[in-house]
């Protein structure tokens, strides 16, 4: 299946819920955007995972939402730091809240609290259930 319709509906639903709750910043890239860029950009790691369908970045998770880390994209210092702090594939993450000015975010991972900026959270691909 080249494109998971159900997954798309699901991510739309999550976005809708987030927008209704007022906790989602529409400025961050939506999942369809990620998917479209994944399809048109060669060598993008998104391409081989289209089937999962509901992959979205941590920045797109709704407040209070949970998910499992699929991967941390990039190989720079920020990505390495995220990995070192325990954001590794399979780790469960709960997005707790955003700071009053909308950035940074507070998450719970591996039993402790971590703060990270939206730009950093965008590097973390999540899988929700």
């Amino acid at each position, binding site marked *: 299946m080249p494109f998971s319709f159900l997954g798309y509906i699901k991510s739309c639903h999550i976005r809708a819920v987030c927008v209704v709750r007022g906790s989602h910043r529409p400025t961050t890239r939506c999942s369809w955007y990620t998917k479209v860029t994944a399809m048109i950009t060669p060598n993008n790691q998104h391409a081989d995972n289209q089937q999962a369908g509901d992959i979205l970045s941590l920045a797109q998770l709704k407040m209070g939402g949970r998910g499992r880390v699929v991967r941390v994209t990039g190989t720079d210092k920020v*990505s390495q730091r995220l990995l070192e702090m325990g954001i590794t594939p399979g780790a469960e993450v709960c997005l707790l809240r955003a700071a009053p000015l909308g950035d940074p975010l507070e998450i719970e991972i591996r039993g402790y609290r971590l703060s990270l900026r939206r730009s950093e959270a965008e590097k973390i691909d999540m899988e929700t259930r």
Partner: protein
Amino acid sequence: MSEIKPASTFRVALIGNPNTGKSTLFSALAGVRQRIGNYPGVTVEKKTGQLEYAGLTLELIDLPGTYSLAPHSPDEMVAVEVLLGRLAGQPAPDVVLSIVDASSLERNLYLVSQVLSLGLPTIVVLNMIDVAQQRQIDIDIPTLAERLGVPVIAVQANRRIGLQQLKEALATAVQGKGAVQGKGAVRENGGQDRLGQKKASEVSAMVLSETMRENPLPDNFKKLTDELTSALNQDREQELPHFLVERLLLDNDGYLEHELLADSPVEQIEHLHAVRQTLSDAGTPVPAVEAIARYDWVARTLAGIVQRPDSQRPTTGDRIDALLTHKVWGTSVLIGVMSLLFSSVFVFADPLMAMVDSGIGQLALGVEGVIAPGPLRSLLVDGVIGGVGAVLVFLPQILILFFFIATLEDCGYMARAAFLMDRLMAGVGLSGRSFIPLLSSFACAVPGIMAARVIENRRDRLATILIAPLMSCSARLPVYVILIGAFVPAHSYLGGLVGLQGLTLLAMYALGIVTAVCVAWLLKRTLLCGETPPFVMELPSFKLPSGRLVLQRMLERGWGFVRRAGTVIFAVTIVVWALAYYPRAQQQVDEAIDNQRQVLVSSVELAEPGTPAYDEVVRQLARFDDPDQRDHLVVSLHQRYSLLGQAGHWIEPVVRPLGWDWRIGCAAIASFPAREVVMGVLGVIYHLGPELDVGEQTDQNQLQQRLRQARWDDTGEPVYNLPVALSLMVFFALCAQCAATLAVIYRETGSWWWPLFTFVYMTLLAYFGALVTYQVGIRLV
């Protein structure tokens, strides 16, 4: 350490994540026998202490708190070099104490996994075991020790529980090491004690059992690293340890490559890149492969031995966290806490500073009573005692500020404050961590700059340090108040709600902030440019701050300031004293007084009695007969003929475009030890004597009156008018006339380059700011 260590001295390194109570444990073990020094070339503090136990001397080395042994900067490299024994004259530690937070084992064991791969004898210390118990986290310690292959000791460092067992384990570990080096380890049948910890002899065996330590990284990685190690170590004088080769491979930000392979042949670097490519092709790309492998290892190690409560019931800490990071409540608490911090620095420090001042004054009076007037008395009173006072006067502010900062840091609030303020600070390219140092700088830049140490990233820390002196500190306030009071008309608008004087004061503060924002923006794009550092920050769980630790931090900072910055401030005060005192042109002064008197006497004869001009001349003439006023005149003339006064004359052409005469130039130079001195120097210049107190209303009024009366030597026009006053204020808002600030920048950055840079850029800004203000001002008025 180059001295030969006695046979029974062993080196113990403490390493752990931030917020694990590592410093508390260090203090509990070392007691008062601590020393703080510097590692050469970096801004990391070197903290060492001594522990005597069972006839052994253990030298404790407290390494900076870190989440990982992956070095990205010289500061982070220090810990790695200490552990590998690569620092000159310092062998690798005999034992490593790896401190972990028992309530957050998963993340903490990541670092432990890296430490274990060093192959050094290690003891894992499970700290804050009480917090874990409170959260009903149950840890099977004996099994953990077995799986790790090293002793695991549970402690509560803040209550000093478990320290005895830890010391025993340490003693056994180092003795075991001696035994192994001598005649091989002796093994006895060891049972387990109450806490499930292994008996001493077995501990020693465990400390050394390197075979049990598996390298969690995948096999292809291990094979490639082995090959790379031998390739890189071909014709190398100092062999690269296996650990560093692993790091070279994993940390692909270029720092280590630059550090270690700068002189290596190109083939070696190409080999390194080829290995990375191979790993990436094999589906195990760096740096992800390390984290995945180590966290896998952590999961395997902890499987079945850590029981967490099933229900995810929110704890008290969770509720406090939710409150303190809430949009409305969190922001209100932040504003409350910051107002408290800020006002207490002002309110509580003020009486203490007055006490220091009056103490110094008493001392000066005492010395004046004992020693006859002359260079020695002046050196002691104005130079030495004044210099000591200039250092001590900062202590109350530093101690109070660090009392608050240490408390906030220890209870876990600092990270929340940074979390709340990050967005705002990110706007100028800084991070939330810069907020408190900059806020503190409104009270005084000295403690503000010292507070910048909480900023991990070197570039962010430097940018914060460099703009901190632009925040209008309390020492600028008297300058603003006097000049505004004297020259800004007291117009008010909106029915008295807004006054022009108040607006001017506000404008001065705003000028500092706006300039700071621009300078930060520029710095982050030029001198300090680089990729945005990660703001991935742990929000530690809340706990009651430890009074002992807070007190210790506070005193450490105070003492550090006196010892390092104090000497510089003292020296500068003495130099400026000498400039203002010498060459002591008594003859010139006497001649000048005679001349002035002669001029007045002749004008008395010319003037008509009863006219205001006549009265004025008579009044001025009376000054020569009143011993007090005559003294003030002599002091003033001595200053004029001193090196400082001459310097004022030399720079008059430079400061003339700012609307200043030589007197203001001279006062500006003399205020180099501290900005607030400028008003005192002007007081001396205008014959008000050296005891002028600009804090007092009557003295202020006197000075304001003299300023209004001041005339240019050549034209007889008034020196001060609104544009001149504004240009002087703008200059003092932007200049770096504060030796203490520059000394602290030197202390915090470890180089003279940065204080010099700060001085030059701020002085240039101040000069051109004042120039524009004056030139625009005179065209408008």
